[in-house]
């Protein structure tokens, strides 16, 4: 486990992580500006009939209605309608064609954990019961486990002894034994490391070029309504 968590970030391509989205945004803005220029030149302007190399703004006609005061000094009941020719360019919200905000949020978490879980269990249990009872007329033996053979031999010896009348007698031996062993162990080890890194970039809205602003101002200030023919 590396103790220096900050070194985990040393291999990160931060330049690409931060710069790539910013470059993509600027490329997008450049593409927007180019498309916007083409849009203005092809849609909002048209070639002059007099000079083919000269562009004149495309005009669209609106009907303007306004109330007027008649000769009696009161507001006329029927509004006066006038024609007004407006450059098409002034209708389009050109300044909205830009990326307003760019936020790059990069978050990284390095986490390392190690866990060792070891369980040892040991259980052993044994029991022995041995009982040997010997009478002169009969012999009986019961044994379990290791003691069985030994006691069996004891019984056999007793039987052999029965063949000798002078040594015949009654005896009973009972042996109980038990052994139990239990063992359980557990080892657990865990470690975690956490580190975060966050980068935030914001790019504001691109301002409208001065040339376009000037053209829009000129157009706006020179819109004069003309009375309708009818």
């Amino acid at each position: 486990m590396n103790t220096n968590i900050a070194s985990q970030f040393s291999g990160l391509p931060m330049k690409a992580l931060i710069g790539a989205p910013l470059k993509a945004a600027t490329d997008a803005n450049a593409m927007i500006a180019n498309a916007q220029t083409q849009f203005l030149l092809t849609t909002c302007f048209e070639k002059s009939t007099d000079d083919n190399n000269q562009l004149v703004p495309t005009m669209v006609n609106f009907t303007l209605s306004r109330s007027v005061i008649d000769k009696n000094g009161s507001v006329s009941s029927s509004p006066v309608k006038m024609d007004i020719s407006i450059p098409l360019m002034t209708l389009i919200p050109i300044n909205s064609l830009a990326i307003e905000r760019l936020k790059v949020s990069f978050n990284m978490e390095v986490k390392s954990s190690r866990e060792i879980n070891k369980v040892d269990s040991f259980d052993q249990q044994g029991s022995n019961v041995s009982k040997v009872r010997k009478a002169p007329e009969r012999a009986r033996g019961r044994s379990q486990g290791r003691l069985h053979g030994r006691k069996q031999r004891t019984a056999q010896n007793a039987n052999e002894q029965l063949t000798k009348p002078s040594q015949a007698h009654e005896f009973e031996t009972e042996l109980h034994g038990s052994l139990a062993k239990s063992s359980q162990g557990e080892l657990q080890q865990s470690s975690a490391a956490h580190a975060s890194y966050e980068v935030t970039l914001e790019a504001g809205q691109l301002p409208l070029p001065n040339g376009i602003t000037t053209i829009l101002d000129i157009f706006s200030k020179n819109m004069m309504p003309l009375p309708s023919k009818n």
Partner: protein
Amino acid sequence: MSIKSKLDCPECNMPIYFESNLLLSGQSFSCSNPNCDVSIALTATDKDVVSNAFNKFEQIRNNATSQAGHHET
């Protein structure tokens, strides 16, 4: 998709707010100045020109937002 925009009032230079869909449908829009009773409406003869311009503008905006990886809904 409707585009919200504005133009300056020829009388008082206050903004006249409009939406492209309503403008193309022939609806009139009044000046935001309460003391100005001017209202304007697009003539039917120039409807196609304005509609074409708004469609191209919308297309440029969609291309830009898709390249930036962000779509406004």
